[in-house]
């Protein structure tokens, strides 16, 4: 039996031990709350504060007449927080959202950073679907409706190669400091104007400093810096011209470039076939991307700047200018065309086998006589031709900011010995004088050349923003009389009887132009175009009105056959659309919202 005394003693010892325990706890409290208190308070603050980026509304892009080309639209999506969801509800949820169970499970499987990051289930809900889902939300824990803003390209595929598209930050961009302010989920410009002027269009993202719980859910808003809307951009593009030209290209592949000769502004830039940038705006699926990339027509290739072709007879313009400037030919000098010219064991034919007879420069351009230009080329020599071609910007990048540009090729003797290790042959001069052989140019370069011809010889680097300071690349340094004379010849080729460009003749405006038919087979055996089709590429370069041009155009139709048939009508349609009064353009081409 415990004695009273020993019992009291034991209880005393126990009390002492327990008191010691309390002292330990108090010391620990002291350590945490007083010694480490301020440090731990900071941790608790950072625990609950989140800084959320708010994307700024993107600037609107207008055409040169003030017609909006894009708009920002908001749309509803159904999202789900996986952590809060019970997977046994998948069949019921799929039924409610009207998507397949497979699709739903697939989307749920691709999770975000944490199980609390909402997973997108269905995009683009209409109002009825939204209220339907809202009413049933309580049956599906974790289900929510989110509002997203996306870019709508009003004209769809029209102008897509210029306007571009939006996409999420790619991994390289995520690391780039210049994108630091961009919220990770935001869409930024990834192509075209949207990419080049992304900084301008993007605006300044705002910030929301919010208090969140451990699940990252917003509890209250502490501070808000509203976003600053991106600046609007007015393009030099004329949507009337652009749309009309793309309509003319339906079913064809090729490109069109239209420039304003006195400033170098791009009035229209077509690469056909085009793509629909709207598909990128809400995140393109990998299947859609793969099919775009696998498309044999290469819709993502900007043919106006990224493809080069032999210019064919359109190159005769350069040879003619060179001949006039070097005085090897003049208005009165004639050449007799017997349907071809023999040189050594080779025969160089004219396209008209029966020959043109005795022919002047004017008729040689109007009828596109090859023999005339064989002769002129022979008199000039390839190095003179090279000189004048480069004076008009050929063989060099134009400096347009759109896509990585091809620079074309203008050969000379030096180039031949350097790259081919063989001397230049006179026969090659013949071939290149009519734009075949080594000569190659992009549709954009041909338009720049035509603009320089129109404006008295200023070679501009094409610009895409209306009112942007023109960028002069160089002066061609040719006599104004030469260029004036050329305009007459070009007008003749369209408007005179027997002119090869008759299909571009317009009732409302004097069009001047030159056809071109670039052989695909027989000359360039190594050409990559050989495998597809064997028809020739059709060219047409034009100015209008011919006396005092307000627009310079180049058209290329891949495998279009004869330039006068395939390309000239497209140029005509583009020019006529551009010449419509502004009011009429709004009426016909403006899109009502």
């Amino acid at each position, binding site marked *: 039996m415990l004695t009273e005394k020993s019992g009291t003693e*034991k209880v005393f010892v*126990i009390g002492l031990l327990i008191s010691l325990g309390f002292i330990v*706890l108090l010391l*620990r409290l002291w350590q*945490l709350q007083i010694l480490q*208190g301020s440090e731990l308070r900071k941790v608790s*603050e950072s625990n609950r504060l989140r800084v959320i980026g708010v994307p700024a509304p993107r600037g609107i892009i207008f055409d040169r007449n003030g017609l909006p080309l894009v708009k920002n639209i908001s749309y509803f999506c159904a999202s789900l927080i996986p952590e809060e969801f019970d997977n046994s509800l998948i069949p019921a949820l799929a039924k409610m959202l009207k998507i397949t169970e497979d699709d739903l499970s697939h989307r749920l499987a691709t999770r975000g950073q944490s199980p609390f990051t909402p997973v997108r289930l269905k995009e683009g809900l209409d109002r009825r679907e939204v209220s339907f889902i809202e009413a049933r939300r309580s049956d599906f824990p974790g289900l929510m409706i989110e509002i997203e803003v996306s870019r709508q390209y009003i004209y769809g595929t029209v102008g897509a190669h210029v306007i571009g598209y939006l996409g999420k930050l790619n991994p390289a961009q995520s690391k780039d400091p210049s994108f630091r302010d961009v919220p990770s989920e935001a869409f930024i410009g990834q192509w075209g104007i949207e990419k080049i002027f992304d900084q301008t269009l993007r605006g300044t993202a705002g910030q929301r400093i919010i208090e969140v719980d451990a699940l990252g859910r917003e509890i209250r808003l502490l501070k808000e810096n509203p976003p600053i809307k991106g600046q609007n951009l007015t393009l030099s593009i004329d949507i009337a011209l652009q749309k009309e030209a793309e309509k003319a290209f339906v079913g064809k592949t090729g490109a069109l470039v239209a420039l304003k000769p006195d400033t170098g502004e791009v009035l229209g830039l077509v690469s056909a076939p085009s793509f629909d940038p709207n598909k990128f705006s809400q995140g393109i699926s990998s299947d859609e991307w793969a099919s775009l990339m696998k498309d044999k027509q290469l819709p993502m290739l900007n043919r106006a700047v990224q493809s080069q072709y032999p210019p064919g007879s359109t190159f005769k313009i350069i040879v003619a200018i060179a001949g006039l400037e070097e005085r090897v030919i003049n208005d009165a000098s004639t050449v007799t065309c017997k349907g071809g010219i023999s040189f050594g064991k080779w025969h160089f034919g004219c396209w008209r086998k029966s020959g043109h007879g005795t022919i002047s420069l004017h008729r040689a351009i109007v009828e596109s006589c090859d023999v005339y230009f064989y002769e002129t080329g022979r008199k000039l020599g390839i190095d003179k031709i090279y000189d004048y071609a480069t004076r008009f910007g050929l063989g060099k990048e134009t400096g347009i900011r759109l896509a990585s540009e091809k620079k074309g090729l203008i050969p000379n003797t030096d180039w031949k010995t350097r790259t081919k290790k063989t001397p230049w042959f006179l026969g090659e001069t013949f071939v290149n004088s009519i734009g075949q052989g080594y000569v190659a140019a992009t549709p954009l370069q041909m338009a720049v050349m035509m603009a320089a011809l129109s404006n008295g010889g200023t070679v501009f680097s094409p610009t895409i923003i209306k009112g942007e300071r023109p960028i002069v690349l160089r002066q061609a340094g040719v006599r104004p009389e030469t260029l004036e004379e050329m305009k007459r010849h070009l007008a003749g080729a369209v408007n005179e009887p027997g002119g090869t460009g008759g299909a571009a003749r317009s009732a409302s405006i004097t069009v001047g132009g030159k056809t071109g038919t670039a052989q695909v087979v027989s000359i360039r055996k190594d050409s990559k175009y050989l495998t597809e089709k064997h028809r020739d590429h059709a060219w047409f370069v034009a100015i209008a009105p011919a006396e005092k041009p307000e627009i310079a155009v180049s058209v290329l139709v891949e495998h279009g056959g004869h330039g006068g048939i395939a390309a000239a009508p497209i140029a005509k349609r583009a020019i006529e659309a551009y010449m419509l009064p502004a009011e009429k353009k709004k009426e016909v081409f403006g899109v009502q919202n």
Partner: protein
Amino acid sequence: MFKIDRRLIQNFDWITFATVLVLSLIGIMTIFSATRQPADAVQSPLFLKQLAWLAISILAMVVCVSFDYAWLGRIAFPLYLTGIVLLVLVLVMGKTGMGAQRWISLGPVSFQPSEFFKLIFVIMMAQYLSLTGWELDIMHLLRAFGLWVVLPFILLVKQPDLGTALVVGLIFTSMMLARGLQRKAVWLVVIVSLVSLPFVGNIVWTGMKDYQKNRIIAFIDPEADPSGIGYHINQSKVAIGSGEIVGKGYLKGTQGPFRFLPERHTDFIFAVFAEEWGFLGSTVLLFLYFLLIMRGLDTARKAKDSFGRMLALGITFMFAVYFFVNIGMTLGIMPVVGIPLPFMSYGGTALLSNFISIGVLMNVRTRRFSLFY
């Protein structure tokens, strides 16, 4: 036996009652703060439930004061058997929660038998030890261990309810020591514990569920995975420390209600309190528990018989173990063992069982004079 005597009311232990009542009310306040929702949301009803349980618990306590505790000694063994049966039942047909089977449903109410088993165990041990009238040697120790501890311990580990198993083990050890062991027996306990630790540790470790293993790892190295295993401890330390001297103020805490702190209204309720009331408030709170335990020891000292003394000691030890393990874990100086803080943590069964225990403790004090009848 159940008649209410005037002297019974005179001798009623108002200090203990006031202490546990204040602790329970602080607990309910803190539960409200810990579970509060953003302004516009529906408020959690947990604090109201706890308030209702408090009312029931006080009634149960009054009942437990009113009869002579000697009667408990007489029914100790049947009570113990009932407790064992309930522990078996919970394994067979219990509800699962948090990866463990601890609950039995009785219609709309579900309760945890292990909550009541602790008190039953104390009563049984008090009765057993008060009947052995000599200093205990090694054989007694082993016999007592074999008779009363092994079976419930296995059943509790099986649930698994390691917290209660630990409490039962600690109550047994401390009651044996307080009762008086031969020096040889004390040494045996120490040596056997030390030698068997690796083996038992290994068996327990392999038998543990993942979340239990994680708690041990987290205790040893909380920084190992701050968002995973060590999360509980880190968040608890942050909550407590950020309270600094005077605290953030009632309903101004952020760690608990915003769910950074797990188990914020149950096991980690002290962290929520300490964040809002700071060092000063926490010291006052700890003092209330100190008062309760000291008062319990005083009751044991003054008890009129051996059974009463062992009963009071056992109950006081039980509260002390709960208190130290819970606060120690919250402060990051003990492993995370999922046991609640008596009177404050949310949980109806626990509150009821605690008030019943307090009732029995007060019963011993009220009837401390042998001449009572």
